[in-house]
Structures are given as structure tokens and as C-alpha cells.
């Protein structure tokens, strides 16, 4: 009996995962090439199964009230919709590429209005916003993202929402990849060849002597072609997600030499990479989300009503009247909230 349940469970989640993550590109032959378990692990199906059971354990009393089947349905639905990461712990949010993309998208959706308002914020403030969605979001990641936008010595400067978001996207989504890149870059700078590819002596010599002030603009960073070679190598064996190699090459082909942060800036501004990542709309459309705007208008109007009704109530004497009114009001408020739930929201992240 238990075995059967497990089997059902496994196949159930499988389907969801196939639908959401793997997409059509996943060929069945490819699937069959791997043992089942590894395949599931690689596609992060196990992660979600584990998490689902974990969530179930955490709220077992409540969930048992409305049905375990219902719970699993909801769980995997929310995974598909990308809402499963809201207010979750950081370790979960960064566990899978899908989660990361979902988080990026959620961040963009929730705080797009901040950017739209035109406010420029500091790194710390962005960090606070991130923490609203993920209470234990590490400061360090935000700092790294800010470093892409800002100069090293100007970390307290203000950033626009879109600049930060795009930089943050690269930093967050590809954080492991970027770390490897940073290591490669450092190696290149110090003249070592991380991939044991033969480095022309001339260039290595150039790097050894730190560029003087006058030629800093010219000699700063590393040679693009060499760097590109190394990255290609890296992408091949990297087990974490990396940006599409073709696009990376495109970025690198435009310049002769570049610095690490120059590379990151180029990545973050690259429209194709953003598209490939698929969490955010194009830069031009970053402030654009008509469905949500519509919803927001409704909310604003409601809050205005709410406030005025509250003011009326405040004039009423006695706290009891106050409470009773609230009680009556609550049900009528809720349907409007639930009415928005079926809002068709599905998006397909690409890998």
C-alpha cells in the first residue's frame, strides 16, 4: 500500500515538473539514459517532493483538516506558478533554478511600483525589500549585486530599480557560475591559466605588471578572447546553471579586454540573457505590468474607502460598535480578494 502511494506520488510530481521545468526539449531518450533516481534528482523533482513532505509535516494538523490530496495539488500548482517561494527561507529559494527565477519574478512583481515611483534606493534598502520576501536573505548577495551597479568605493550610492534588478538577477541566478568566473578571472589576472590552456607569454607578462595609471584604461582586466575560452571550458563542465554560451561569447566578442565587473555589467545589460533566463520582462518593459496595475488601482480605491469608512467608525462611540462593524465588513472584503486569485498566471522559465 505504502509502496503504491509512493509510486503515485512520484509520478504525480513528475508530471508537474515535466510540464513546468523540463519543457519539450527534454527528450524521453535522454530521460531513459539516466537511472530514474538520478534523473529525478537532476531535474530537482526530489527537491520539491522533499519540500512538499516537509511542508506537510509542518502543518499536518491544519492540512489533515482539508485533505492531503488537496494539499499536494496546491503545492505543485504553486510550484508551477512560482508562488511557492514567497516568504520561504533562503536555503529553499536558492535551491533550484526554478525557485530562483520565481523569486526574481516575485521580487519584480511586488516592488515594480517602487521603481515606477522613480525612487532611487540604497543597497541596504533593496536588501530590506528582499527581506520582506525572504526574511533571511543574506546581505552579501545584495552587496555583490550592488557592486555590479556601483563602483567599489561608492557602495552607499543610490540605484535605480531596473539597474539593481538586472544586476541582481545575474548575481542571484548565476551566483555559483559567477564565483567560478571570478576565480578564473583572478587566475588570469595573476597570469595562471586555470584551464591549462597555453597562454601567450606576452599577455601573461602584461598582467603581471599592474597597469600604470596612464594606460589603465587600456590594460585593465583580461583579454576577452582568452577569457571567453576559459568560460567555454567552464560552461561545459559546470553543473550549475550558466548563461547560454553563445550569448556569453557574443558579449565577449565585442571587446578586446575587459574586467570582471565589466563582464558582469555586460551580462546584466544583455537583453538576450535576460530573455534566456526568462524571469523578467525586457528592460524596456520592466515597469510594465498592466494586470497588476489594474489590480493596484482597485486596491488603492479600496484602501481609500477603507480609510474613510474607518474614519466614520472612529467617530462612533464605543469600541464594540467598532468591532461589530469590522465583523460585518470582513466577508465582503474577502470575495474581492479571492476574485483575483484565478488571475491566469503561468510562465515558463527556460533553461
Amino acid at each position: 500500500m505504502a509502496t503504491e502511494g509512493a509510486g503515485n506520488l512520484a509520478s504525480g510530481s513528475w508530471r508537474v515538473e515535466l510540464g513546468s521545468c523540463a519543457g519539450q526539449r527534454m527528450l524521453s531518450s535522454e530521460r531513459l539514459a539516466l537511472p530514474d533516481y538520478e534523473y529525478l534528482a537532476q531535474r530537482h523533482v526530489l527537491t520539491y517532493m522533499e519540500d512538499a513532505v516537509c511542508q506537510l509535516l509542518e502543518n499536518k494538523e491544519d492540512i489533515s483538516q482539508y485533505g492531503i490530496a488537496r494539499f499536494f495539488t496546491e503545492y505543485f500548482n504553486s510550484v508551477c506558478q512560482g508562488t511557492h517561494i514567497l516568504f520561504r527561507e533562503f536555503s529553499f529559494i536558492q535551491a533550484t533554478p526554478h525557485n530562483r527565477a520565481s523569486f526574481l519574478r516575485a521580487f519584480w512583481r511586488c516592488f515594480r511600483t517602487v521603481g515606477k515611483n522613480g525612487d532611487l534606493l540604497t543597497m541596504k534598502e533593496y536588501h530590506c525589500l528582499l527581506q520582506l520576501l525572504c526574511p533571511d536573505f543574506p546581505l552579501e548577495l545584495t552587496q555583490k549585486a550592488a557592486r555590479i551597479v556601483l563602483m567599489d568605493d561608492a557602495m552607499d550610492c543610490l540605484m535605480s530599480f531596473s539597474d539593481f534588478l538586472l544586476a541582481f538577477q545575474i548575481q542571484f541566478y548565476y551566483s555559483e557560475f559567477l564565483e567560478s568566473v571570478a576565480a578564473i578571472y583572478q587566475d588570469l589576472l595573476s597570469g595562471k591559466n586555470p584551464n591549462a590552456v597555453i597562454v601567450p607569454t606576452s599577455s601573461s607578462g602584461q598582467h603581471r605588471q599592474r597597469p600604470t595609471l596612464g594606460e589603465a584604461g587600456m590594460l585593465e582586466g583580461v583579454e576577452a578572447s582568452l577569457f571567453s575560452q576559459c568560460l567555454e571550458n567552464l560552461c561545459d563542465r559546470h553543473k550549475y546553471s550558466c548563461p547560454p554560451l553563445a550569448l556569453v561569447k557574443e558579449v565577449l566578442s565585442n571587446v578586446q579586454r575587459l574586467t570582471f565587473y565589466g563582464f558582469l555589467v555586460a551580462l546584466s545589460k544583455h537583453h538576450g540573457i535576460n530573455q534566456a533566463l526568462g524571469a523578467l520582462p525586457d528592460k524596456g518593459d520592466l515597469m510594465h505590468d498592466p494586470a497588476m496595475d489594474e489590480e493596484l488601482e482597485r486596491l488603492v480605491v479600496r484602501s481609500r474607502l477603507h480609510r474613510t469608512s474607518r474614519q466614520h467608525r472612529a467617530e462612533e462611540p464605543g469600541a464594540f460598535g467598532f468591532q461589530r462593524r469590522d465583523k460585518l465588513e470582513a466577508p465582503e472584503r474577502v470575495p474581492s480578494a479571492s476574485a483575483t486569485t484565478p488571475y491566469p498566471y503561468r510562465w515558463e522559465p527556460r533553461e
Partner: protein
Amino acid sequence: MIPGKYRSVSGRATNNVNCGLHLVIQTSSLPEKNKVEFKLHKETPSFPGRLLQHDLERNYSSRQGDGRVISPSPRNKSSCISSTTNVTELCGLEMKTTTSSFSAFGDSSIQTPSKSRIRQGCHSAGPNVSGEHINLVSSSMPSFPILQRSSEEKILYSDRLTLERQKLTVCPIIDGEEHLRLLNFQHNFITRIQNISNLQKLIFLDLYDNQIEEISGLCTLRSLRVLLLGKNRIKKISNLENLKSLDVLDLHGNQITTIENVNHLCDLRVLNLARNLLSHVDNLNGLDSLTELNLRHNQITFVRDVDNLPSLQRLFLSFNNISTFESVCCLADSTSLSDITFDGNPIAQESWYRHTVLQNMMQLRQLDMKRITEEERRMASVIAKKEEEKKRESHKQSLLKEKKRLTINNVARKWDLQQQRVTNIATNQDGKDSDSPSQDPCQVDGSTISAFPEETGSLDSGLSNALQGLSVTDTYLVEVDGDTLSLYGSGALESLDRNWSVQTAGMVTTVSFTFIEFDEIVQVLPKLKIKFPNSLHLKFKETNLVMLQQFNALAQLRRIDQLTVDPQGNPVVSFTLWKYYVLFRLSHFSMQKINGTEVTQNDMIMAERLFGILAHVASSELPQYRLISILGDARKKQFRYLLESKGKKPGIVNEENNDSKRLAGENTNRATLNYTTRDFYNEKLEEIKEKKKFCKTYIEDLVKEATEINMKNEALQKLWPQMFIELVRDAVIEIRNKNSYMKLCLQKITDQK
């Protein structure tokens, strides 16, 4: 010359309008009348200036208090002349009275022995009588005139001699008058006392209004009892050594700066030092008989030694520079003093003046010429008692204040140390994070603590050292001031457990937190809600508010009208969005003010615009199981609402609904935005990790099992067609020979039987 002098006298009268007027009219204080009197003075220039002067001075003194001698009534309506007669008569009376005879006249130089003489002078109304009575004969000596009197004169006034207004520049040689007891040199220009050493019987010497610069030539006048040296140019009290029986010493209107060389005058009863240049009163011991001391119109700032005057009854300190009671406090120790004046001093302007003086000098009978009534004394003592209480209270207050200050300092120091440590740990943590970004933060936390034991240890010892150095050991402070409850230091939070009186608790509308971690505050918020239901205004200072989400914690309160977050120690205030976030998250409170700024409708709309979507996403897109787990226990009841209205199965059975009613006020879609303190959160993460570990193995097992089954299934699927074929073949082979098969079957059936 003389009219000029009059003018100066009347001028002085104008200066002292009050006194002069009072003097003549005595009891009346009507200014018109005073003016009238004054005019009278002016209009009678022939009137002897001396009398006028006397009148003035006498009136000072009489006003100062000797009502028993001069009865004011007869003089009230009297004309100037009659008043002068009165004066003289009174003087006469005075003479007959006993000890206090001179006292009534203060700095006056008019004296009784010249009664008849004065009367004569008055009647004749001439400035002087020189020609009539006295012949000044130029002596053989070039500089000193020799005085001789006619025999009738001598008989008539055998023991007195008056040389008023004789324009004398030196003392004349007085011959054959050894029996003289009274000598009057008033209003001359004498610069030096000379030629009187032979008058050994002299009792009364009047040198009023001369130009004497030094007291001298008196050493032989052992019987002198009255010495009048008013209005001269004396700078120093000296050469009085032999005048042991001196009764009255008048030195008013001189340039004396210190009281000295008088300690041997044990019979002196009246000392007049008015209108001198004294800056203080001192060196009075030995004046055992002194009953009246006139020190008016000096520049005295403090009085000492008066308690060494056993007989002193009247002390006139009007028009000096006394500003505190402390500077004259020796007066309180004088048992004999009954009459004192302080008018014209700064001290008399103080509101506390009269009752303080009365309270400290119970022996007084008159103060500033006013009789002290019992009622007044009682009032004074009541006021003094109150004052005393107030003082004690204020002292206590200042003690408390000081203690409070020290405590706050102490708390602040502790806080700083703590903050330093926290940031240290934070940086350590960051460092760790960068090493292993994928790690669980709570694990990082644990490892840092274990990795830096020495550091925390040393900091701890530093902290305790600092604490030992402090005299105040209190590490927290709780203060209720009116409607404000102030908490300093995390220890203060425990005070919320105390049993607060209903009244106090009801009164508190403002709660201020200083030097307390916000996370610690969060834990007591439910208590705060219960204990201080009326708290409407929360203040945070040095509370380590760093994140917007921390404000979520405030949503659980009953009501907040005002929020004040001091930028000091609360980095969150530097964010541009914090106000809007507060407004958004706490919109159910309809807050009035944030950091003292009125909240406008536009602010509210802005807040909604900025964060509305967040709330919307949080409420409408969260899967239901997440909603439940986020809302936590307290909110489940409220959440039940949501469930019910959504037409789904109710979550939990609700036994108590008070809370849910209240919570319903909170915008439900915001309830999902809550705050768990870092410690608690870390705990939770730890818990989750445990669960995860379990789930991992569980799922692993399940999946393995499932894949195995799957594999078996697949293998079976592969085998099955072949097996089927084989089975069919076997069966077909079996039934190929129909007869033998039938036989076999029948055999089986029979066997069964």
C-alpha cells in the same frame, strides 16, 4: 551757600520721597499729601535746614519703627512749623525717657540738651543767632579765634554752647568754660577737631555738617557720651580709645568703608553708620550695649557678627545690596533683635522675602516698619514648611534625576558594548557567508560562535570591567512620567510583568523604548497590549530597527496613533520607503502621525501604491497551506474567516473570538506580512532543517522503492508477452491429443471422489 544746602537737603528729600513724605505725614501714604508737605518744605527756605534734615532722618528712623515714642497722629495734619515744634517737644520728651531716647532719631543730629536753644532758633526763624549770644573775638593767636560769652549768656546757658553756622573753619579756643557739657559746632567748615581737650566735662559734642577728615583730639574727653560727627569727610573710625562711656556715636554721611576700632565701646547704645561706603558688616563684638544699629544707605552685601550683639534690638539695613537671606543669616541667631528693615535691598523684591525672614527670625516684632501679626507669622511658617517640603522634594527629584541620568548612561554604555559585539558577530557572519553562500545561515551562526570564543570572551570581560567601574549598577530604567512610560535597557522590559495599577496603566498613552533590541521588544508586545491598553504612541530610540519587516511586528498591537522612530540607533529611518511601509503595513490603525509629521491621505495612497501589490501577491497567491503556516497560531482564528468566506472547510475550532474580532480590523491581505525575531527565526530554520533531513531520507527511500517497483514492472512488462506465449503453447500441447486429455481429466475427477 546755605540756600544751596537747603536745596541739596530738599533734593535728598526728593530722592527719598517715600521716606520724607512718610515722615511728615507718617501714616498717610497718599502721594498728594506728601507733595503738599514737600512743597511746604520748599516754600519755607528760611526754615532751618538742620531741622529739615533732622526731620528727614528722624522720620526715617521713626518710620523704621519707634512708634511708641513718636505718635503719628498729632503730626499728621500739622503744618511744617508745628511739626517742627512737635519734633522739638518730642525731643524733649525723649530726653526724659530712658534708654531708647536717642534711638528714635536715627541719624539725626538734633539733640535734647539744645531744646530751648532750638526752640529759640525756631521762634526767631533766623538762620542763626550768632550776633545775639556770642561774640567771637579774634584772639592774639593768628589762626584760632577766642570765644567769649557775655556773663548773662553764661548764666543762662551755663553748661552749653552753640556755635551753629558761624562759618568757622577751625575750632575756636574756648576759654573759661570748663564746665561746658554740651558743645555744638553744627554747620561750620571745621576740618579738624582741636582746642577742646580742656573741656573734660563735655558730654555732648555735635560736629554735624563740617569738613572733618579724621576723628582726633578727643582723647581727653573721657566723659563724652554723645558724639555726633554726621555729614563729614571721615574715612576711618579711629581715635576713640578713651571714650569708654560713649553712648551715642553718629557717623552718618561719611566715607567709612569698614567698621573698626569700636570693639571697646561697651556702653555704646546707638551707632549710626548710615550713608557710608560700607560693603559689609563685621567686627562688632564687644558692643555689648548696642541696641540700635543704623546701616541704611550703604553698599552692604553681607552681614556678620550681629549675633554677638546681646542687646541689639533695632537694625536698619534699608537700601543696601543684600540679595540673599544666606548673607544675613547670622541675624537669625540674634535673640534680642526685634525690629529690622530690609527695604530697598534686592532681597525685598523676592517673593519669598517676607515669610523667609519671618520664619527665620521668630523674635522679630517689626519688619520694614510693619508690625508682625500672629496671622502673618503663622502664614510664614506654613509657607516655609511648604517651601521646605518643596525643597526636599526638588532635592529628591534632582537626586532621582541624577540617578536616572547615571542609569541611562550606564545602559547606553552597555548598549554600545553590546552593539559592538553584535556588529562584530555580524561581520564575522558575513565573512562566513561569503565563504559558503549556500549554507544555512543558522548553521553559520552556530559556527561563528564556536569559531570566535576568545573574542566574545574578551568582550564580555571588557563589558564586566566597564560595569564594575560604574557606581550605578542598574542596567535598566523604568519611568512613568505622566502619560509616558519610558523603558531604558532590555531589563526594563521585565517591568511589563509587574502589576501595574489600573489607573497608571490606563493613563499611559505613550511608550518609549530606548537602548533595547527591537527583537526583544517584539516579544513583549502582547504583554504591552494587555497591560497598557491605551498606549497609542510608540517611541523607539536606539532599538536597532534595521529592516522594514520589523515593523510587521507592530501590527499585532491594539492600536497605534503615533509612531516615533528616532534615527539614532535605528538605521531603518534612513530609508526613503520606511514611512510608506509603516503606513502600508499598519494601515489598519489609521495612524495620525509618524515621527511627528501628520499623515495625509496622499501618504496613505502612496503607501498603497508602493506596497499594495506586495500585499495582494502575499494574500492571493500564497497557497493555502502556506497561509496557514505563516499566519501562526494567533492568526489562525482570523484566518478561519478567510477560509469560511472562501467557502472552504473551516480550519480550527474557534473557542475564543475576541481576538479574531479585533484582528478582523487588520487588512487581511497584510496579515501574511509578519515578523519573527531573528533568534526565533533561526530556531525555526533549525527545525526545518531537521525536518528536511528526515524528509530527504524518507523521500529517498520512497523514490528508490518506487523506481524499483517501476523497474520490476517494466521488466515484467517485457517478459509478459513471451511468458504468455509459452503458457499458451504449453496448454495447446497439453490438449493436442483429445482422447488422452479426456482420459486424464476423467481420471482427475474420479480421483477427487
